[in-house]
């Protein structure tokens, strides 16, 4: 069946969609008389009301740069396929994979098929579903620095618009090395692939982290992006924000009436955020040598979690309202003076040790790692938010590799009771603790004091533990599924904005710079399988606190 790519009919003159102005003389008269013109706001489609969950992305082409890379095969394509098999992608869809290697469409599809067998969240892959999906995959070879790539890509996308009815809507996804971002963006711009013309479809770009190496490079990259794309077209991905339990932080805070009143310096003693990994750098030694824990975790995941925990309630759940509040938190954090870094930030690097009953190598013995490396695999920081709500409340953040277990948790430690009433007890009540487990065993734990059964009046801390699995026996979507669908729908709420990225770098860059000017650290300084260097414990002990036992 012929499928027109674009409307064949001339656009009727006059209609001004999204325009609040009355449309006819009669309507103008009614408007002057103060009478409503219609049931629905003229700026929106009234049929959309209540159809949130039924919303289907527009017909679109998904242009994947770095399609032969690990990220594309492990995460992006499996997420797209899962969206396709659950009918969340439009029928008029195409995936255009752009890479440097010489593949035919068929060869590349074969490779993706093999990757899906390995990485798809739901197995087995149904042959008929795959065939329908595979028919929408095209491979486009080229060098990212070659202007001809973008010329030929434009022609191919136009042809695919005709073939698949994708109507000129394009989502560019940069799953490449960060060093290629700028040249791809510039190439897209030169070929006019960024232009959104009336009726010719939208253009969006998703950029993977790391977004810059420091404040200067982030600003430079934002500038390069801004030369080609408007901020509303840009989706900077931090996959942590797509995780079900991270999104649940918002529901937990703002969907429950009892927590927000005590989410305040008056009741909160301190906050701990832990992102622990038991794995090492795996096959990413060369990447990690450049990044380190501060760039890989602190600037993005930890800062995002901190912002979500500390932000004020946004007025609405739309992208800018949410991101405005997160940026306010980051703005309220004073960048550290070089002299303060040593007292507030600890870095570490793992040496050989044992994890989960297995001997493991030290960082410096990992493949692609300099035997004299000074790259940190652990970072812990004591940060403050200077605003009305949080002044004086320390936020202790830590992230590291080769720690005893994999765990991402946020813990709110409340203040102790003002008066020790149970003097006969052999222990004072512990301060209350509210812990949100992001992974694994997603859930929420509240620790409170209870009387030990018996004749005396002994007090013990007990846990009230909610696990997601016990209430909802459904498997959550992968973060990439959530985020890719959001980008296709044009919802940027879970993506980071330029100012957010820059503000986070403004906090982390002085730390990295202070380390560069400091004496060589005595690495390795923690054993693989331990909870990080001793200095991290000292960081809290100085304040009379300690890290939670996880």
């Amino acid at each position, binding site marked *: 069946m012929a499928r027109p790519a674009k409307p064949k009919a001339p656009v009727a003159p006059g209609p001004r*969609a999204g325009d609040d102005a009355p449309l006819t003389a009669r309507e103008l008269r009614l408007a002057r008389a103060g009478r409503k013109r219609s*049931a629905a706001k003229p700026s929106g*489609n009234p049929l*959309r009301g209540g159809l949130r969950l039924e919303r*289907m992305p527009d017909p679109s082409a998904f242009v994947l740069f770095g399609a032969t890379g690990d990220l594309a095969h492990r995460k992006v394509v499996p997420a797209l396929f899962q969206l396709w098999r659950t009918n969340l992608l439009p029928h008029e869809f195409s995936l255009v994979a752009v890479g440097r290697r010489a593949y035919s469409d068929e060869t590349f599809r074969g490779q993706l098929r093999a990757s899906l067998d390995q990485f798809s969240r739901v197995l087995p892959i149904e042959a008929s579903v795959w065939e329908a999906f595979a028919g929408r995959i095209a491979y486009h070879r080229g060098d990212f620095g070659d202007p001809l790539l973008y010329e030929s890509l434009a022609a191919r996308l136009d042809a695919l618009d005709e073939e698949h009815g994708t109507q000129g809507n394009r989502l560019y996804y940069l799953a490449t090395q960060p060093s290629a971002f700028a040249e791809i963006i510039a190439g897209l711009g030169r070929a006019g692939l960024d232009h959104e013309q009336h009726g010719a479809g939208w253009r969006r770009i998703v950029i993977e982290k790391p977004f810059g190496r420091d404040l200067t490079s982030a600003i430079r990259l934002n500038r390069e992006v801004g030369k080609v794309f408007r901020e509303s077209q840009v989706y900077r991905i931090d996959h942590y924000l797509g995780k079900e339990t991270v999104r649940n932080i918002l529901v937990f805070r703002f969907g429950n009436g009892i927590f927000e009143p005590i989410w305040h310096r008056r009741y909160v003693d301190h906050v701990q955020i832990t992102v622990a990994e038991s794995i090492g750098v795996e096959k990413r030694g060369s990447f990690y040598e450049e990044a380190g824990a501060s760039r890989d975790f602190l600037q993005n995941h930890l800062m995002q979690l901190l912002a979500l925990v500390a932000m004020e309630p946004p007025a609405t759940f739309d992208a800018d309202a949410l991101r405005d509040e997160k940026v306010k938190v980051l703005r309220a954090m004073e960048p550290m003076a070089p002299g303060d870094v040593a007292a507030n930030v600890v870095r570490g690097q793992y040496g050989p040790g044992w994890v989960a009953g297995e001997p493991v190598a030290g960082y410096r013995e990992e493949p692609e790692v300099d035997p004299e490396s000074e790259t940190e695999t652990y970072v812990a920081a004591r940060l403050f938010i200077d605003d009305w709500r949080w002044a004086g409340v320390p936020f202790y953040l830590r992230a590291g590799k080769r720690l005893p277990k994999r765990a991402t948790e946020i813990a709110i430690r409340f203040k102790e009771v003002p008066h020790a009433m149970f003097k006969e007890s052999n222990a004072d009540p512990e301060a209350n603790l509210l812990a949100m487990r992001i992974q694994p065993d997603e859930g929420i734990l509240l620790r409170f004091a209870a009387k030990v059964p018996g004749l005396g009046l002994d007090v013990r801390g007990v846990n009230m533990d909610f696990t997601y699995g016990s209430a909802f026996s459904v498997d959550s979507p992968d973060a990439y599924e959530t985020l890719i669908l959001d980008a296709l729908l044009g919802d940027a709420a879970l993506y980071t904005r330029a100012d957010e990225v820059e503000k986070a770098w403004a906090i982390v860059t002085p730390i990295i710079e202070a380390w560069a000017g400091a004496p060589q650290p005595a690495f390795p300084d923690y054993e693989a399988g331990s909870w990080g260097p001793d200095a991290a414990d000292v960081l809290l002990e100085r304040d009379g606190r300690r890290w939670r036992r996880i």
Partner: protein
Amino acid sequence: MAPHLSSAGGDGAVVPFGISAMPGEPTLRWAGHATSVAEIERELGRIWALPQAMAARDGAAERHVAARTSVLNLVVVARSPELGEGAASTLAMATGRHPSRTLILVPTDPDGPGWLRAEVRAYCMVPRADAPETCAEQVYITAGGDTGRHLQAIVAPLLVHDLPVTVWWPGDPPFGVASTSALVGTADRLVVDGSHWTGDGLDRLAALAALARPTLPVSDFALMRQARWREAVASVFDRPEFLPYLRSLRRIAVTYATRGGPNAEVSTNLVKPIYHVAWLAARLELRVARPLARVGRPLADGSRPARPGAPPEPGRGLRALLEWDRGADVEIVIRPVISGMPGGTTLRVELLAERRGSELRAEVTAEAESVHVLVWQDGVEALERTYHAPRLTDVDLLTAALEAGSRDPVAEGTLAAAGRLVGVGAPGAG
């Protein structure tokens, strides 16, 4: 009459472990019997008092069994054993996705003596291979005589405290009967399938619309099945150049399948075709100027064999008139076509809008497992799209209904508009 008490029952036992449960597949872990509500309560208590026994395999603890899952109470009223078994098998699959305490009630033999027989079961599953096992209870209750006529008296003591109550009524709910009202009165959500009601379903649709209120949201599978149709229709007006036409809608025509033959007019279920119109009427705040009424000659009867694919005979079906707040009319046509598809299936939705001398015509049709949209502007084809619309199973629909929030403006508005469209004393026997 109070439920008949007996010393029997309370014989529940751990079901021996068979093949280990696959992730996502519910497995029967406990089975017991009871002959009174008190025994059911005791049996439910015993399941959770013996967690170690449930976790045992060959005398050794095998897997940590998590606590009972507790998100809602689900009460199913099945007015025949067939419906009850059908519901139980649907629930067995839905349990894994949305566990709840489930009470399946099968009233029977209303004129006999009062009695009750219950099977108490626990189904457990692991969402992922490495996740702890979680379990949910299912109680299948057959009740005869007076006991079966006072379902609310059985249900009330068996509900888990503080959890919402959803009542699922497969088949034909006897709206207007006191016992139905009592049961529905305590519910927080009512789940029905209007497309399976007998007859044309108009009377039941009117009754359901009258029953729905903000505190009792209704999930009708018939309406839920049309999600992709709504998406398809809405998407036409996402385009800025078409949006202004929406407010100049002049005609909505819905074509539905019927098998023809004697009594086809009153035996074809019309709930789904009416929901299409009702949804549009609700979203556009169109008033009902003239409710739906039958027009034209009856469909071909036995003397004129029906042929699938036969062209529609003009002037048949139902007509109504809606109007905009500014007074302009919207003509409603709901017309049958003899088809091999199940009776009452929507085949096509057509919209016609005229604005300043320009015309927009949109046609949404069903094609196997997809919904196809075609739009013409002044006679020129201007848009074509296809939406995947795989047939949803009862498991999909029930799961979606159980997961629905208390606020569903689409269902609320559509049902209210459907009630107005049908009007009191609508033609046809429900």
